[in-house]
């Protein structure tokens, strides 16, 4: 039992450390900044211009200074938090937004722990992924947004159906502001050097496999990898759900077999890096791609902004000539079918300023927020032609038409649909993914174990 306490103490220390340690520096600077801004503005407005003050009153309902606490991760490396806040506070000078960085590794765990306690005073929380969302909804710590959505006439159809996939028992508890799709990144220099045509926006998995193999070079010391799969199971397992006939919470994973076989064969032939090495070295996918010897890599569109930024900063020098194309697809499936993840905002039931928080959530997830997101190179949840144009015209975005075209999707499937048991299912799937990729069990045995394990979880 001593261990039980030790472990919870450990968890508590982690929570404290991630707030004070990682958060403090990044969080205080901008917060202080906005406070200063707000103060000067209210001083100006109060004595001089009454009409302006009146106009603002109708817009924000109240001129009372409000401070919203926003839970998020990676403040220092994420480019859109501050622009979003700036855009919002410019229109609402009475609002100050304080960012609290909970760290990215265990974000959902830490957030869950914080919201379960009585002392939490977050007004807005970012929801990192669907399993984290479901677990918070189950805990009953998120405010249902349906009434507010109906009252303010928010048009959910602009989110391309994604909000339906996260509606639980008729209630929606989050509003997405960012949506990432999976695409195929490639390094043009490698293709030029090998004299091979670039990948296209309409490739089947067989064509992709052939292409990756055609640029591979296994000479020791001068390896070129035709493909790269990060250690996440989603890089391989989820390729199978793009036909729309299967989901990852089905309880039957026979459909993953061809993808595992393709990647295992590539691993054996040195087309991609060895999983075991990637896992123990903890090699980040961005570092792998930046080495300049990876020809193609399937990854989410969140990597676009990082890539542009790091190349601009001069940090990445070996992959400056890059492009993206649509995700490869199975035979008979429409090109542009891809995986997606959403990042959303929610209001905790314990939030001190729910109305002000809702106004902020609405702004960030709405059209104005979407334009801010796009201007930083990130794909907002609410997309249309203008948004795609904004992203593609960004300085540093590949100039070829195919890369721009790649951002347009035909069907998107959430990496993990809303399901009560998602975290237990993940545990089973991760375990078998690891065993397959380490070549410790055959694909068939592992799939049988996945089927059995997940069905047991579902039956609970």
């Amino acid at each position: 039992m001593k261990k039980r306490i030790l472990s919870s103490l450990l968890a508590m220390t982690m929570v404290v450390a991630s707030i004070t340690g990682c958060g403090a520096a990044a969080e205080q600077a901008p917060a202080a900044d906005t406070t200063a801004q707000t103060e000067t503005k209210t001083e100006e407005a109060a004595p001089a211009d009454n009409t302006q003050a009146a106009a603002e009153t109708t817009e924000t309902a109240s001129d009372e200074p409000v401070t919203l606490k926003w839970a998020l991760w990676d403040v220092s490396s994420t480019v859109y938090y501050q622009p979003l806040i700036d855009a919002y506070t410019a229109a609402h000078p009475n609002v100050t937004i304080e960012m609290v960085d909970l760290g990215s590794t265990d974000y959902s765990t830490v957030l869950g722990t914080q919201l379960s306690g009585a002392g939490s005073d977050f007004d807005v929380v970012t929801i990192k992924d669907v399993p984290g969302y479901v677990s918070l909804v189950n805990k009953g710590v998120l405010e249902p947004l349906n009434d507010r959505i109906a009252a303010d006439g928010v048009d959910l159809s602009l989110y391309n159906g994604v909000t339906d996939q996260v509606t639980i028992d008729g209630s929606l508890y989050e509003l997405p502001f960012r949506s990432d799709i999976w695409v195929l990144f490639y390094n043009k220099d490698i293709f030029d050097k090998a004299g091979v045509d670039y990948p296209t926006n309409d490739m089947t998995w067989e064509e992709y496999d052939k292409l990756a193999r055609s640029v591979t070079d296994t000479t020791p010391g001068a390896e070129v990898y035709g493909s790269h799969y990060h250690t996440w199971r989603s890089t391989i397992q989820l390729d199978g759900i793009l036909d729309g006939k299967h989901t990852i919470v089905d309880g039957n994973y026979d459909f993953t077999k061809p993808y595992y076989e393709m990647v295992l064969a590539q691993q054996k032939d040195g087309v991609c890096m060895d999983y075991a090495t990637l896992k123990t070295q903890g090699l980040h996918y961005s570092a792998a791609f930046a080495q300049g010897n990876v020809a193609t890599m399937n990854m989410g569109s969140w990597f676009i902004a990082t890539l542009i930024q790091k190349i601009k900063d001069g940090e990445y020098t070996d992959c400056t000539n890059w492009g993206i194309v649509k995700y490869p697809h199975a035979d008979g499936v429409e090109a542009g079918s891809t995986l997606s993840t959403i990042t959303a905002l929610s209001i905790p039931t314990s939030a001190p300023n729910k109305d002000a928080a809702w106004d902020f959530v609405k702004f960030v997830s709405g059209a104005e927020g979407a334009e801010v997101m796009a201007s930083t190179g990130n794909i907002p949840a609410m997309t249309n032609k203008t948004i795609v144009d904004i992203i593609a015209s960004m300085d540093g975005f590949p100039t070829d038409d195919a890369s721009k075209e790649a951002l347009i999707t035909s069907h998107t499937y959430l990496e993990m649909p809303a399901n009560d048991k998602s975290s237990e299912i993940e545990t089973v799937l991760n375990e078998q993914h690891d065993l397959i990729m380490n070549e410790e069990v055959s694909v068939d045995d592992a799939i049988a174990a996945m089927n059995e394990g997940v069905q047991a979880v579902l039956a609970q």
Partner: protein
Amino acid sequence: MAAGITAMEKNMKRRQRKRNLVAYSFIAPNFIGFAVFTLGPIVLALLMSFAEWDGSNAMKFVGLDNFVQIFSDDRFTSALKNTIVYSIFTVPITLIMALGLAILLNQKIKGTNFFRTVAFFPYVASLVAVAAVWNMLFTPAKGGIVNQLLMNVFHAQPLKWAASSSTVMLTIIMFSVWKNMGYYMVIYLAGLQGISEDLYEAASLDGANAWQKFRHITVPQLKPTTFFVTIMLTINCFKVYDIVYMLAGGSNGVVNKSAIVLVYYIYEEAFRNWKLGRASASALVLFAIVLAVTLIQFKGEKNYAND
């Protein structure tokens, strides 16, 4: 008369009570801390192990269900097995290595302090940093330093170390022994220095060789130290978590059945799956095991001391 006695008794009682109060007030600061941060959670954990709770919705009492569930969960049984295997190997190996090092570094040789520092360094170094270095040395790639050594010097097959389910426990045990032996070495050094030189001198006069001196003087004289080290090591082994997470967690931070240990299982159930009841039940099992092992050791120590 009778009234006088009762008055005196009352007086004494009052004085006694006052004395008690003074004593309690001295204990209070420590006890309040203990009650709030240790006793409270222990009692809560005990309660939770018989309940189903996710941390925010209402608690539901389910009797022994949690225990039935965890014992039919193969992640729990693997965790139990791995923890026991880890302890069975780590405790004696660390003990022997620490004793060996202590004896070596207790000699009057040049640079003793330097070598003592070298042996103690892994213990004070940050776990995250040394685990990263360790993973680099023991990388599963053929080009890794240790694998190169295996192939070129020992002509053996390269191993996948922490990446493979068959060698992951071996890697963890080796790492743990290397990291912690320095600490126990220091304890043994203190013990060794407490042994009177006279004993060795007398034995030398009687013609005892080095092994006999070690066997009949050093080992019995170090018995209390060994007892302490064994208990501390066993308890620390059962609560291992960080080493496993660092070496076997990989880039997605998921520990597999081949390497999962009890404390990690408790963490996973509690804070990933939000099943606080099952987590508490496993914590109770862990507590019971540590208690049993420690009691056995205490008993052994008593018999030991008698001979």
